[in-house]
């Protein structure tokens, strides 16, 4: 491993050096909220943040994305594939939970017989610089889903905020090369490493939300039909804040957008959400998931039951965005509690 030290004042220097080679994405303030945007000026970078409102997944899987463009010449159609997929991307200052979400997304889009070329190409060309989470929020629960506020595996380079400086650790081969390029970085001392470890420990101990997801999955598998779902979906108003702000939600809709006056158009994909009744509505009028109860259940089952059985991992990174985003406070922690209650109650019955 290669450990270096980056002074906080040198972020600008790092930016101007890397910006030439990469499309540089970093957290910045947009209308009061933190979002990952293409940075044009180093001063926009805001590294001292809790977490972004919209997850950085939208850099690689934007809300609206062109699949291909087409143009009409008489009755002939000419399809043009995207050419910008080879741009090198740098996603700077990603929290470990979101970095882990990139891995989940990559696994999902690469699974099965068909690979999502668009996402995978972008992912391949992206370098991720993670940053440790010194103060996890109350709504965070990454340690329960196999994550950690200082988890480094899913990143290429990992930063730890040591106060005035960042400890820079190169994790992957890609990361090592990147750090090599930044030859002006000072070497890290042992004390810096110790401090980083200390911070990691402190952060880990500060978690207030912990779940036993193995148990949750088990209970979910057995209780698809259970009155608790009615209770869970009762106060849900069916807005899609939870899914739109989720770093692992991948559902999309495909539509053709036309520029009719110029005889051209593009087939695009836009985020879609299982919380919308139109998501499954068939043309015939039949809807397999017509009510809120089925839609709420689908979201929870998808993350904590279908994902484990299909991909052998939870479909959640524990960022807590859905918890803070729910406008009616019908949040995940309460839902999980209610699900686990089923188990407790049935356990009581057995012992009685």
């Amino acid at each position, binding site marked *: 491993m290669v450990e270096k030290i980056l002074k906080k004042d040198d972020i600008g220097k790092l930016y101007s050096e890397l910006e030439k080679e990469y499309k540089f994405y970093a957290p910045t303030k947009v209308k009061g909220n933190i979002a990952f945007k293409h940075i044009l000026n180093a001063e926009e970078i805001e590294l001292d943040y809790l977490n972004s409102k919209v997850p950085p997944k939208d850099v690689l899987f934007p809300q609206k994305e062109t699949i291909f463009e087409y143009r009409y010449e008489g009755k002939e159609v000419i*399809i043009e594939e995207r050419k910008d997929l080879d741009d090198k991307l740098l996603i700077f200052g990603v929290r470990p939970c979101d970095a882990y979400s990139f891995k989940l997304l990559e696994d999902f889009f690469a*699974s*099965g017989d068909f690979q999502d070329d668009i996402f995978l190409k972008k992912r391949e060309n992206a370098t991720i610089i993670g940053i440790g989470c010194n103060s996890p929020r109350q709504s965070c629960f990454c340690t329960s889903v196999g994550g950690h506020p200082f988890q480094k595996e899913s990143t290429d380079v990992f930063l730890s905020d040591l106060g005035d400086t960042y400890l820079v650790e190169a994790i992957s081969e890609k990361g090592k090369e990147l750090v090599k390029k930044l030859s002006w970085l000072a070497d890290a001392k042992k004390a810096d490493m110790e401090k980083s470890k200390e911070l990691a420990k402190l952060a880990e101990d500060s978690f207030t939300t912990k779940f036993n997801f193995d148990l949750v999955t088990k209970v979910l598998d057995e209780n698809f039909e259970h009155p608790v779902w009615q209770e869970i979906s009762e106060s849900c108003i069916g807005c899609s804040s939870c899914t739109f702000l989720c770093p692992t939600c991948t*559902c*999309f*809709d495909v539509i*053709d957008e036309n520029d009719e006056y110029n005889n051209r158009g593009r087939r695009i994909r836009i985020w*879609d959400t299982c919380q919308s009744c139109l998501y*499954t509505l068939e*043309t015939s009028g039949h809807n397999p998931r017509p009510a809120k109860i089925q839609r709420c259940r689908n979201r929870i089952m998808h993350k904590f039951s279908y994902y484990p059985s299909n991909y052998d991992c939870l479909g959640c990174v524990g960022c807590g965005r859905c918890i803070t985003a729910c406008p009616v406070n019908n949040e995940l922690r309460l839902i999980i509690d209610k699900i686990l209650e089923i188990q407790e109650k049935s356990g009581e019955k057995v012992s009685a």
Partner: protein
Amino acid sequence: MPNPYIPMLTKIKSIISENEVRDIKTIELEFQKEEDYKAFDYIPGQFAEISIIGKGECPIGIASSPTEEGTIKFTIKKMGTVTSSFHNSDIGDTIGVRGPLGNGWPMEELKGQNIVVIGGGFAFSTLRSLVLYVLDDNHRKDYGDITVIYGNRDSGEVLYRDVLEEWEKRDDINVVLTIDREEEGWTRKVGFVAAIVKEVAPSPDNAVAIICGPPIMIRTAVDELVKIGWKDEKILNSLEMRMKCGIGKCGRCNIGEKFVCIDGPVFSLAELKKMPNEY
């Protein structure tokens, strides 16, 4: 690796209006590139995402059989935006095709067994494909007896009259056509599909039932089959779901952990019973 969202381009070769009310058409497509046709290697029961570029895409079962060389056919009912645009298309228009997708009927497993095909309405397209495949000279010997029970609301709705007439003339296939209500000039059976299934009472011995049709027909026909001793594993259904990508990425066609587009659309009744009732 090619981008799986990019369609292969075809042109409409012919359009056949299938029924009296003219809301069902069969379109025949011709690939623009020879290699695309070669790559489009399918079995009966699979589907493809076909699109009018600029209007949108929709999943449609392949109505032609792989044994009909040089062409693929889709039977399309006028329902929504995309299917209506198909109905408004002309010969020579460009159509995008992505596929073949889905698992299709298990043609290998069916070998050596008797096949009972039960269909209703315009869901008969992939069944047409299957029967044509089995009746092909190269394949006929691999399969046992074939019974086809095909029901419709009235005689005007019967699809694929030309092939049905041909089948009726053959002696290696038993074709039972039925309509819901009596009609002047109709010489075949009258009654709902379930009633006809009861009447025909296909034997469950060494046989597989293949069912495709409206949900109510599937349910009643399956009930009849179970009553006369059919096992869940031997009853195959083809499901429908709203789909966008067709390759297991867009998320909407899941029934429990299964995706209809990649794990289906063909499921046995035994499999369906294990899945949540969300279809």
